[in-house]
Every structure is written in structure tokens, then in C-alpha cells.
């Protein structure tokens, strides 16, 4: 059991911009050094490194990171798939590793030049391999299109509306306006979202995450050691991964018996069980939000409302900071702060637990962090 055995003791980021002008290995090192400084530790203390991986591309090997940090010995390392589904997974692996005594101080990080590095699907060749062979020739090419089909079916089955999707983007932008790290800080309205250009019907431009360059990192160590370090520890009360049956990536959600049987439902069940909490115990939620609609699916998967009720939940202002019962993505999320495969959400969870968030939830003692709903997923519960 790893419940409460470890804590996040340091966080670090680079700036989040469109064209950072430095390779992903370099920004990874910057974010990790900042996280070590924050914790009051050095590279000499590090003995494990975990990172997010994507199936298609991975520039930063643990080998290069360890060598360039000056780590004397790595006792554990690994990459966790899959992209945004792994937003919490490197921390899950770090916690397992430290709790079992395989290592003492683990780094978990994500570094990504998505603003300037090009879009993965642009490299599609003349012949498409894998299950994409049954989608891309028909014109279903990228994630926004893949999820737009699911979103339209969700609207049909549950009566959700474009206004409700837009409401997520509006709530998060209101938080980003107070966050100096956020890339987009200009407040927006539901009308602005609906008037932004259509990307893949029913999803508009402002329903989509932004594309930025940047890196972020956290440091995980034992709960015991955490108590002697510089920062108030964010204890890892629950940690999980989940995939569910017959799963594909986003392109294949519609091949499942029930496309709304999301991986995150399985991650939710297990993270609550380990943390021994219920939805009502959660003070703030950091939900992976590559598209606005996904936040509705997360609210349902994590039991904050019944399937199909999240649209109304959002519309009633219940995810708004500071007055909603469950403030969501208080940093602005992927829609407004930065797109780092959701790893920036883990850092915001830590800030909320420390009491240092720009949009601080009063007396926050339990923060839930969840990775992408629709791909093999992961989740964390952090406590004060």
C-alpha cells in the first residue's frame, strides 16, 4: 500500500510560451532544477526519474536528463504512456518507487514544445499504419475531430449544449486572468466561445486547449523525509492508473461497446479507494481539459454528478472559483494556462495544498488531479 507514504515536496516550471527557442531537454532540465531548488534538494539527492511519454515521439530520455543534471546514480526510471492520459502517471510511478524503497528522491516531469514543434498528425505519410488506416483516409485525422464525434453523440444522448461546453472555457479563463504564468489571460464570455471559429463541429476554437512550449517537474520523496524539507508537503493520499476494456486511443473511442466507458472511470474508482475519500471530500479538482467537453466527462467519471448531468452542473457555476462548490482548473488549465500534457495540473494541485495558488481555494485540504478521460488514464489525490 502506498497511501500517504510519499509527498510532493518540490515544483518547478519554465515559462509557457509559443516559441521558447530551446530544445525540450533543456527546458526539462530547467524545470527539474527549479523543482529541486523549491524542495531544498540537489541533483545529488535524485535517484529516480519518471516522465510522460507519447506513442509517437519522445525526445527526452531519462539517460540524458540524469547525465545533464549530474545525478550520481539512478535506481529507477521509466516513461508512462499515453500523452495526456499520463498527466499523473509519472507521479504515480514515483510514489510507488519511493514507497517501496526502490528509491528515495524521484523526479517526475513533462517537457514539450507543442507550440513550435509541429503537430504530430502533420507527419501522416501516404500510407497510414495501425487503426488510423480505418480513420484518416475518411478525414478523421486529429484529436479535435476524433473527440468532436464523441461530443456530438454525448450531446444527443444527454442533452448537453455548446453553451455548457463554452462555460468550462469561460470559468477557466477567469482563473487564468489572475495567473501570471497563464498564456491566455484575457477574460472571455460564452458568446466569445460560440463566436470563435468552428474547428470540428461542435467544438469551437475556444473549446480547444492552447498550444505552448514549456516544461514542468515535481519532486517526490517519502512522507518522513518530506517533513524536514523546505515546503509544506503535499501528501500523496491516492494514486491510480486505469484503462478499462477494449480500449484504443482517442481515434478508437467509438469502437468500444460504450464510448462513454472512459478509462478515467476506472482511475477514479481506484484513486478514491486508495485515498479512502468520496467526491464530497474534494476541495478542488484539476481535470485534464484538452477540450472543454472533457471536463464534463471528468465531473461525471469522478462522481460529482450523474452521467449526463455535468452540463447543468457547469452551467450553474458549480465549478467556478471562488464561489462554486468544486472549483476546477484554478490555474486556467490546458485551455488557458499551458498545454504540457496536463502535468501543469499536478503542480496546481500542489499549490492548492500549500495554500499558494493564485486562485486559492480557502482551506483546501484535498486536491484531486486527473489525466485525460479518453486515453489510458491516471489520477492523484493530494492532501495537506
Amino acid at each position, binding site marked *: 500500500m502506498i497511501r500517504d507514504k510519499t509527498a510532493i515536496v518540490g515544483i518547478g516550471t519554465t515559462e509557457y510560451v509559443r516559441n521558447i527557442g530551446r530544445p525540450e531537454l533543456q527546458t526539462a532540465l530547467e524545470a527539474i532544477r527549479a523543482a529541486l531548488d523549491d524542495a531544498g534538494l540537489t541533483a545529488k539527492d535524485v535517484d529516480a526519474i519518471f516522465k510522460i511519454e507519447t506513442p509517437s515521439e519522445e525526445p527526452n530520455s531519462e539517460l540524458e536528463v540524469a547525465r545533464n543534471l549530474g545525478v550520481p546514480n539512478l535506481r529507477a526510471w521509466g516513461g508512462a504512456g499515453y500523452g495526456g492520459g499520463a498527466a499523473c502517471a509519472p507521479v504515480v510511478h514515483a510514489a510507488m518507487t519511493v514507497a517501496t524503497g526502490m528509491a528515495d528522491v524521484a523526479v517526475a516531469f513533462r517537457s514539450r514544445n507543442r507550440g513550435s514543434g509541429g503537430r504530430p498528425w502533420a507527419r501522416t505519410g501516404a500510407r497510414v499504419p495501425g487503426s488510423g488506416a*480505418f480513420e484518416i*483516409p475518411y478525414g478523421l485525422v486529429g484529436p479535435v475531430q476524433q473527440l468532436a*464525434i464523441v461530443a456530438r453523440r454525448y450531446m*444527443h444522448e444527454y442533452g448537453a449544449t455548446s453553451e455548457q461546453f463554452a462555460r468550462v472555457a469561460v470559468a477557466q479563463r477567469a482563473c487564468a486572468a489572475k495567473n501570471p504564468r497563464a498564456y491566455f489571460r484575457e477574460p472571455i464570455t460564452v458568446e466569445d466561445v460560440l463566436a470563435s*471559429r468552428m474547428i*470540428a463541429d461542435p467544438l469551437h476554437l475556444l473549446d480547444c486547449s492552447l498550444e505552448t512550449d514549456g516544461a514542468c517537474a515535481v519532486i517526490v520523496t517519502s512522507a518522513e523525509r518530506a517533513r524536514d524539507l523546505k515546503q509544506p508537503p503535499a501528501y500523496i493520499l491516492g494514486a491510480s492508473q486505469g484503462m478499462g476494456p477494449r480500449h484504443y486511443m482517442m481515434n478508437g473511442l467509438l469502437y468500444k461497446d460504450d464510448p462513454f466507458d472512459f478509462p478515467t472511470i476506472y482511475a477514479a474508482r481506484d484513486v478514491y479507494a486508495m485515498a479512502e475519500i468520496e467526491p464530497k471530500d474534494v476541495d478542488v479538482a484539476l481535470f485534464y481539459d484538452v477540450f472543454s467537453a472533457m471536463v464534463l466527462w471528468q465531473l461525471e467519471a469522478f462522481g460529482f454528478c450523474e452521467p449526463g448531468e455535468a452540463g447543468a452542473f457547469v452551467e450553474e457555476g458549480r465549478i467556478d472559483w471562488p464561489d462554486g462548490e468544486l472549483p476546477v482548473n484554478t490555474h486556467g488549465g490546458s485551455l488557458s494556462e499551458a498545454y504540457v500534457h496536463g502535468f501543469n495540473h499536478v503542480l496546481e494541485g500542489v499549490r492548492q495544498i500549500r495554500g499558494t495558488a493564485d486562485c486559492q481555494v480557502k482551506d483546501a485540504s484535498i486536491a484531486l488531479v486527473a489525466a485525460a478521460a479518453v486515453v489510458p488514464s491516471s489520477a492523484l489525490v493530494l492532501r495537506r
Partner: protein
Amino acid sequence: MADPTEMTPQRPLPEITPLTEPFWTAAKAMKLVLQKCAKCAEYQFPPELACTHCGSPVVDWVEVSGRASLYSWTVAHPPMLPYFHGRSPWPVVAVQLEEGPRMISNVVEIPVGEYEFGMPLVAEFEEVSEDVTLVVFRRAP
């Protein structure tokens, strides 16, 4: 240097592998085939090495009716690949086959404004290259 507007970008086509070859060979012969588990009798799509319902390694290819209904759709506005430049907005559909599995496809001869959830469709075959015939759908008669 050639004027890029004169270049005709190719439609992205499926890589045909030993696993998927029966599907594409059948499509070329204007037949829709799916894998069916020899043990649990579930149909599946896309093709896999084993049954994803029960894990049995024996799956057979069988011809199916081609009857389907419209499950969902999107209309892609900014084109993501060169072939779709000048062809956008581009509708893409998900259909529910009568036998259970769903497929991504295109609907022919129905304007997107007339799409309705559950509308009955039937498979149609669109030859797009020497070796590739795509399975598309039209309104069921």
C-alpha cells in the same frame, strides 16, 4: 520550383498489412467483411490478432449485411492534411453496423444538414486507388 497550387495532394490511404488485407481485398470486391470470434461469436472492428471480447486467438472473416445506422458525426473545418485543403468543411461519420461494431466512414449523396441520428444507411464502395476501395455509406433504400 513547381507552383504548389498545381500539385494534387494524394488522399492518405491505408497501409495494407497481413492483418488488414482480408478487409481491403473484400472491399475491392464490393463486400464488407468483419472478424467474428470462433469461440464467443462476437464481431469486432477494426481487425485484431485475437478476439478483444474473450481473448480467443481464433477469429474468422465473415461477410456482413452492410446495413448500418448513423451513430454520430463531425464536420472538420480547418483541414489537417494537404488532401483536405479545398475540400473542407469535410464531414466524417461514425456508423453503427447491424452486427454491432462501429466504423468511421463518410456518407455519400446526403448533405450534412440532412444527417439524423439513427438514420438507416447501407454500405457503398468507393475505389480511391488501384489497391484501395474505401467502404462508405449511403441512405438505405
